[in-house]
């Protein structure tokens, strides 16, 4: 699965729709799916807010994001020899990371949600942007019959 999203507050909801459909097609269980959708929504929100500096509901800050500011979302299912599956998502932006404290929110909950809803969260900040990798908890192979 891959998508390129605009750096504005519509992006998290588009990402959620896409991931929900994709995980449903892969027969991910509803509770695990819900967790991953939330984790990805938070990662994309972080890119919008802390990568591109667009404050929630703030049209003036939104004007700072240019049309070339994008957030990339990739997803793949990795199956091991026992049939155990993990979903792995990569969320990439090309913004300049602004720490939450600079934006005045010292108690942001986004990271806490991501860490609780994914098995593994890897964040790589560079001068060119931020890449977040989210790995799901392992799931057994899907049933052979429709759920």
């Amino acid at each position, binding site marked *: 699965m891959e998508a390129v999203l605009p750096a504005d507050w*519509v992006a*998290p909801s588009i990402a959620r729709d896409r991931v929900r459909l994709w995980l449903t097609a892969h027969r991910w269980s509803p509770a695990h799916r819900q967790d991953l959708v939330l984790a990805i*929504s938070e990662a994309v*929100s972080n890119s*919008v807010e802390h990568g591109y500096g667009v404050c929630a*509901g703030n049209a003036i800050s*939104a004007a700072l994001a240019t049309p070339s500011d994008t957030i990339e979302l990739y997803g793949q299912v990795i199956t091991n020899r026992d049939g155990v599956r993990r979903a792995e998502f990569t969320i990439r932006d090309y913004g300049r990371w602004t720490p939450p404290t600079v934006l005045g929110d010292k108690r942001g909950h986004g990271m806490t*949600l991501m860490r609780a809803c994914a098995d593994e969260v890897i964040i790589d900040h560079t001068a060119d942007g931020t890449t977040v990798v989210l790995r799901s908890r392992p799931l057994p192979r899907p049933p052979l019959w429709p759920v």
Partner: protein
Amino acid sequence: MPVLCAAVKPAHDEQTPHGGGHVGGRPDREQLMTVRWSDQGDATIITVHGDIDGLTAPRLRMAIAEAFDRLSGRLLVVDLTQVTLLGSPGLRILRDSAEEAVHRRGLPPLRLVVDETRPAIRPIEIVGLDQILALYHSVADALAGDDLHC
């Protein structure tokens, strides 16, 4: 000077990574969350449907602030049982509104109805806000004051 509105960017902003075609239709994001008001006896009830994220959370903040202004002694209950996603911007607003009620406006604690609704209660519990928010299983419980901690 052009005024950009985050919610109405043209659909062609959604491109595939290889530039081939569009990612698909863009649903109406105004419908992502709806906020309904109703009055029951001595209480005002705000019922939230849908997703609370960075796009919609400011609208919830305004609705709660407006309700605070108009309460004049009435109880405020926010019903989250129809919420399908509660992201960090929504959690922030619930926390700030609860603090505002008690510390800045001298109102009784904001009463939140969460039911067993996983999309709302799970994020609240993950970040530990269940320790500081007044949570109820139903609107009736919230009106009666029978909170989950009792």
